[in-house]
């Protein structure tokens, strides 16, 4: 089947290249040196949750089906280890989960809520947008729910159709008061998740579910955090800057490798935190390369790529040598059979790199 082939293609890419840490920043090199075990992404998340519960007696993990380990196994072993008062199933109600999490967090706890799929976060939209995001501001900082972290698996998996594939990050990036974070790999996931849990603001943490099992890399076993609102240049280059986050980065990296064969030097940036985002790193890169391509799975119109594009035009107008390009999902619902057509594929990105460089 087409979808099966597509799935295989993607896993092959991931397995063949594995980690981005070869070209990591010095901060991450330090982490990698403190050798760890080879872990996939869901196990890295699981480790982060173990550490979060271990290091803070006021941390709680809850959501639909989390007791038995969660439908993606991210919460495996937590209930056994920390007991059902701290790790528990909730009734099937996303608005309840987030509202409950806000209250728990407002009492000075770390509320780590799981939404089973990002596609099912919408019933909780009001609690996130009107409540979590404004809890601090509207009370004049008398109250806050900064201990709230909402984890949700997002993105394509090859056969998820409308409701097991969406990338809803842009909706949340339009909401002052919450942070939105998306990790690209197991090592990143662990360090970023711990930062989100311990950040004094409510955070929505989208996990690339395609990578749960497929992405494997060395993950240090100890407790470490990676900074929020700091983008990372994961591949240096001089001709064009590529910006992305989460699972899409592996596709973009493939495009960078292929472009290199045609003599184009690409700089690849992982944004990691979508709001508040690290404009400076992107700006510095675009000032160097003069060109920018942004790629995400979510539909192109109103996607977060539009915000990046607008900001960079404001800051780098005179340095740009070509229009900023967006290679994103189509403006359709996420389709099942047509998924390979919908996706921002490596070749779509590669073609756009070439035409931008030859503009």
């Amino acid at each position, binding site marked *: 089947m*087409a979808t099966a082939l597509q799935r295989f293609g993607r896993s092959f890419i991931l397995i063949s290249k594995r980690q981005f840490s070869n070209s990591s920043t010095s901060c991450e090199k330090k982490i990698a040196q403190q050798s760890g075990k080879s872990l996939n992404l869901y196990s890295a998340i699981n480790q982060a949750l173990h550490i979060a519960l271990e290091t803070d007696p006021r941390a709680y993990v809850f959501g639909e089906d989390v007791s038995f380990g969660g*439908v993606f196994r991210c919460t495996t072993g937590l209930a056994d280890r920390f007991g059902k008062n701290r790790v528990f199933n909730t009734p099937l109600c996303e608005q309840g989960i987030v509202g409950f999490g806000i209250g728990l967090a407002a009492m000075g706890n770390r509320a780590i809520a799981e939404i089973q799929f990002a596609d099912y976060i919408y019933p909780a939209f009001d609690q996130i947008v009107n409540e979590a995001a404004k809890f601090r501001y509207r009370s004049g900082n008398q109250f806050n729910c900064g201990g709230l972290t909402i984890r949700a698996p997002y993105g394509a998996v090859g056969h998820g159709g409308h409701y097991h594939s969406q990338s809803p990050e842009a909706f949340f990036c339009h909401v002052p008061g919450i942070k939105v974070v998306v990790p690209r790999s197991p090592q990143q996931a662990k360090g970023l998740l711990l930062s989100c849990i311990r950040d004094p603001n409510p955070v929505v943490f989208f996990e690339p579910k395609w990578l749960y099992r497929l992405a494997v890399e060395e993950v240090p076993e100890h407790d470490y955090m990676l900074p929020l609102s700091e983008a990372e240049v994961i591949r240096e280059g001089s001709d064009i800057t590529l910006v992305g986050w989460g699972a899409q980065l592996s596709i973009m990296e493939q495009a960078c490798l292929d472009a290199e064969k045609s003599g184009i030097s690409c700089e690849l940036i992982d944004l990691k935190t979508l709001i508040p985002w690290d404009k400076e790193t992107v700006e510095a890169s675009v000032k160097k390369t003069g060109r920018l391509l942004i790629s995400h799975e979510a539909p192109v119109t109103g996607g977060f790529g539009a915000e990046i594009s607008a900001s960079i035009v404001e800051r780098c107008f005179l340095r740009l040598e070509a229009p900023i390009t967006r290679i994103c999902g189509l403006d*359709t619902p996420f*389709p099942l059979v047509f998924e390979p057509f919908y996706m921002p594929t490596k*070749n779509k990105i590669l073609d756009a790199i070439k035409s931008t460089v030859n503009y």
Partner: protein
Amino acid sequence: MLVRTMTILLSIRLSSRKIITHQNFQSKSLGFLGLVNHNSSVSSYSSLFHCKAGSSSSTFMPIGESYPHKPHALLGTLYSFLHYKSTEAQNQLEPQYTHEDKDDQANDFPGGKVSFTSEMTFISETPVKRVPCFRVLDDNGDPITYSNYEQIQQLSKEVAVKMYNNMVTLQMMDTVFYEAQRQGRISFYITTMGEEAINIASAAALSIDDLILPQYREPGILLWRGFTLKEFADQLFGNQADHGKGRQMPVHYGSNKLNYITISSPIATQLPQAVGVAYSLKMDRKDACAVTYFGDGTTSEGDFHAALNFAAVMEVPIIFICRNNGWAISTPTEEQFRSDGIVVKGPAYGMRSIRVDGNDALAVYAAVHTARRMAISEQRPVLIEALTYRVGHHSTSDDSTKYRPVDEIEYWKKSRNPVNRFRRWVEKNGWWNDEDELELRNSVKKQLLQAIQVAERIPKPPLADLFSDVYANLPSNLHEQEKLLRETIKEHPQDYPSDVPM
């Protein structure tokens, strides 16, 4: 647990008046739910509206005098509770309030008179008795005493045999399609195993004009209405013949022709929509109702509560059918809700409600048939809680042995199998025998394998279907994206599946 709570709710309204209950309970364990009585008379919750065994259906009316006039929605509910007949077993349902002030001191709050009491009594969260579960057939498929309902007496051989036939077909669909998923031929599947009676018997009791708003474990209604095995297979393979044009995951069936609104994965969203559908039927004075299905887990969503409240307030012809199968993926009902399940939520919203044995096809049939008549002739919502068990894994992405004992599954699969139970009854009527069984199973198997083979070879929907139907007409951004995509495909044909026609 909530029986008591409800009793007290009633008592507030009834003052010291007495209400009836049924005496023909037969205690039977329903396993995961704990002990629930089986009750052999169709009765809406509170037992105030009950259909006597053998009584003529046209006299299906609240016991006692009929309404003096069509009351206001809220008052209607109030009045309806005022009808009473006997004092039997009243102790169980008797109010806890022994001291109530005289009527003339009742407080005239907006919404009706409420009497005062000098007793500070909290309504109990624990009922003395659980709401009993209506059934017609015992585990051997023998009709139990009292249960000679008119609907069942009128059930013809033809309909009964079709029901059995469909239940077997549904069972075999599950076996064959599940296997196809395991072989990687389709990407996903959800079985209905254990819930064949709810599916088929409810469908049989409805009319084709009734609008169905399903969850995802109710393909039996489509089957009953004439959806062919090939149509099921077409959807599962997402081929050109799929009515949904290959856009949704397997099992997200839908058929405009068969009044079955296309399934959506997000839980509970269909419920308030069903109320809107029912309101339209009401405005158009149609001889039809809306029927919406959902699981036990789904009742935790806000949409469920919105829907029940809307339905009661809008007085619409709708039947809510909850398949309480004990599990929502890995979450058992004890972690989903407290009190006595779903049925007791109905009266809290002002809705007639009944609990039925979902593994008893005849009970489901009688209850849905009766509910439909009430819903349409009285323009009111009805809630049905069907107790059953999810025999299969949640879906092909799930392994339920991780969170529930294998013998529990086996018990429900073998000892409580709704298909076997119905078969015994059909056989005892002399309408079915082993030979028929063999012939049916052979023929369905052949049809299923053929449906799969044919559906698998049909090409995928054309690329244009990726862009159509996002809006009624193609907007310019999609027009542009389609053009660009076609150019990309020409450049990189190897990136795209060859079975999607350009």
